[in-house]
Structures are given as C-alpha cells and as structure tokens.
C-alpha cells in the first residue's frame, strides 16, 4: 500500500520505503520460528489485547500499565528509519510510535539507573518457537541509559500507518536504528531500569558473534560474513553499509573513546 507522503521530520530518511508486503513477510522473530516466513505464517496465534507492560527496577514511578493506556500517554509520531539486519540485509520502515525517552522521563529513572532492560512475552502457547530451546527464552535486550534517552530511540506501535502487525513485534517493540535489527526487541512486556548491563539474548547465545552494543559497523565483520555491504530488500546490487547505519552524526558521540572493535 502506498502511504501518503507527509513532510519529512528531522529524524526521517527520504529513501524509498520498503513496501508493506515485503516488510511484513520477511522477518526474524524466532518466537515464531527461525524461517523468514515463519512469523508471517504463524503470527495469528499471538493475542495482543489485553496486554500489560510492567515498568520497574531503578525508577521512581514503577507502573504496570495496559498497552492502550501506555499509548495514550504520548502523541504518536511517524519515523522513517533504516533497519539493518546483522545478516546483511536492510529495509526502510515507516514506524508509528513514541520516543523511548518520553516514556523514561515519565517514569523517572532513579540516580542508580544505568541501563534499560527489555523483556519479550514468554508464552509457548502463543509463540510456537518458544516450545524449542533455540534461544534462551524469554528474549531480553538492553541499552545503556544514555542510548535509551537518545531522541532516535523509539517505541513502535504501528507500521505503514496501521497497527503494528504481529510478525513485526506487536503490540510494542523497540526501534534503535543505528544498531543491528536484533536489538529491536519485539512484543515487549517488561521494561526494567538496572544498575548492571543486562544479559542480552544473542550476546549470551553467541558472545563471539553478537555483542551488547551491536552498533552497525562496516569495519567489524561478523565471524562468518563481512558487514561492509548490505542488500536493501528489493534491490539486486549490494550497497555499502554506513557506520552507525548512517546515523553517525547523531549518535557517534555516545561512544567517544570506546574501542568499537572490542565493544562490538
């Protein structure tokens, strides 16, 4: 479906948007299965209402909140972001949602909070992929607090002007466009502010292949393939991958002085 073009915001890319049909049928969402078409095929088993999100840990105002209430706290915004998968393909996604920073400011992190940990729903009845132990369920992701507060960090509840499809992480997912796609945890049920760096799922599963930071970096290859190029879905020729997925101007300063080969 073609989307009516609105004026671009300061965080939007003007690149051609990946069509809805492709963005919703080529997904990594191991809770439904490891195949790219498993999520679209099996996502009907996920029920996204009622849905409660628990926000706790090092916060002054912990809360257990219904997804519709949570959404009503913030005006919904459009964001057209590049999305680069660690496997070497990318899309341009028109998200709908609210900045993660707005949510964090509302629940007020305490002075001890240094990281934000996200947890996906664990329910093998709804997620057939969780009946096997291909990953250590539930899926956990995390950000440093300053990363989470960056204006690019986003919580999506919609895509292409519609409610977020189940296979894309309904009803609530993280979008951090300068990191590899696996950081963008889907179907979030819990957000916990912590003092210690969260033990994130892929970094636990294969620590030599996937790091906590997972910033898009063409100079740090995956052990099994180069990260220097990517295929934009819909294109035949690969294109060069940009540092921080093209968001270096906005986010490189977060990592000043850090060895990005070590903290990959």
């Amino acid at each position: 479906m073609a989307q009516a073009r609105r004026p671009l915001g300061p965080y939007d890319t003007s690149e051609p948007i990946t069509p809805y049909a492709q963005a919703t049928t080529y997904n990594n969402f191991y809770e439904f299965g490891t195949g790219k078409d498993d999520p679209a095929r099996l996502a009907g088993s996920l029920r996204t209402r009622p849905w409660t999100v628990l926000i706790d840990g090092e916060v002054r105002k912990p809360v257990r909140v219904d997804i519709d209430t949570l959404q009503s706290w913030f005006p919904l915004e459009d964001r057209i972001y590049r999305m680069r998968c660690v496997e070497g393909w990318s899309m341009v996604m028109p998200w709908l949602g609210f900045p993660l920073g707005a949510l964090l400011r509302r629940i007020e992190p305490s002075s001890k909070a240094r990281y934000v940990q996200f947890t996906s729903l664990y329910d093998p009845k709804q997620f057939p992929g969780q009946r096997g132990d291909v990953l250590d369920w539930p899926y956990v992701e995390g950000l440093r607090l300053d990363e989470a507060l960056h204006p690019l960090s986003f919580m999506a509840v919609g895509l292409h002007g519609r409610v977020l499809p189940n296979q894309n992480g309904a009803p609530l997912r993280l979008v951090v466009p300068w990191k590899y796609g696996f950081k963008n945890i889907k179907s979030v049920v819990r957000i916990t502010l912590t003092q210690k760096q969260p033990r994130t799922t892929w970094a636990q599963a294969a620590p030599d292949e996937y790091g906590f930071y997972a910033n898009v970096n063409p100079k740090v290859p995956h052990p099994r393939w180069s990260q220097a190029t990517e295929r934009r879905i819909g294109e035949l020729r690969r294109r060069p991958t940009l540092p921080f997925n093209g968001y270096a101007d906005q986010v490189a300063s977060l990592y000043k002085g850090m060895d990005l080969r070590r903290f990959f």
Partner: protein
Amino acid sequence: MVVGGLVPAAVLLLDAQTGALGANPVQRAILQTGLLALALLILSLACTPLRMLTGWTWPARIRKALGLLAFFYGVLHFLLYLLDHGFTPAVVLEDVLERPFVTVGFAALVLMLPLALTSGRGAVRRLGFQNWQRLHQLAYVAVGLGVLHFWWGVKKDHTPPLIAALVVAVLFAVRLIRSRRTRARS
C-alpha cells in the same frame, strides 16, 4: 534422471520470475541451491551402501548422475554467491581466505571438480580402476566439508545440519563395516 534433476533449477528460475522467492530472492536461491547440492551429494554417496545392503543394482546406475547434479548445484550455489557480492574479486577472496565458513564450502566445491571431470567411463579406463576409486573417495571429504559449511551457515537451529551429519555418518559406517567384513573373509 539428469533431466529430472534439473527440475528444481527450473522451478527456482520460475519462482524468481514470479516473485515467489520472497523479499530476498538471491539469498533464498543461494540457500536452496546449497541444500540441493549437499542433498544430491549425500544421495550419490548412499548408492553404494544401498547396493551393499539390498543387492539392488539400480542405485549404482544413478550414482554418476546424482554426483554430477550435486556438482551442478554446487556451481550454481557459488555463482549465486558471486552474484550476491556483485562479482567483486576482493570481497570473494577475503571471504574464502579469512572466513572458515566460506573456506570449507569453497574447498568442498573445488574437491568436486576433479570428480566431475573424471565421471565418464573413459576416465576409469585411463586412470585405472584402483586410482579412479581412490580419487573418488574425495567425495567423502567433500561431503564432510559440505556438512561443516552447512553447520556454520545456520545462525542458531542446528537440527538440519545435524541430520545431514548423521546420515553421512551412517553411510560411512555401513561401508566401513562391509569392507572390514570383506577383508576378514579373504
């Protein structure tokens, strides 16, 4: 037989035309040709053990065709990989030299080349049966490397490569046991 073995290639071509290969068709075609190459190579190696166990003669008659088809899909797999990287020599060289995952896959294909070239009856005569047979034992090295390539190629779920490894192990065991028995008898 050979014509039948080309049906998957035709289906792949057709799917590519109609968009049935999904959002990332090159990637999908690479995966499917790789799987076909490995499956056909394993099938070609199953012919002799099957003949040993059953006494049937037809497996021996299709062995060559299976082996050649495996090589054909291996080459297609490699060509698609080259296409994926825009036929850029530097990228491919770096992959082959520095990434064990690619190295072993490439080595498996290279090992299959002399086997494909000596698949005719003339070659058996020229080399002598013993030499020819010894040369064609490389197929076991190739399948071992192929399974390793498959193992390293999957991101997390190792069940399919594990099944492939088990099948190869069983086939190898049948031969080993049989040849030992034959030797014990003589």
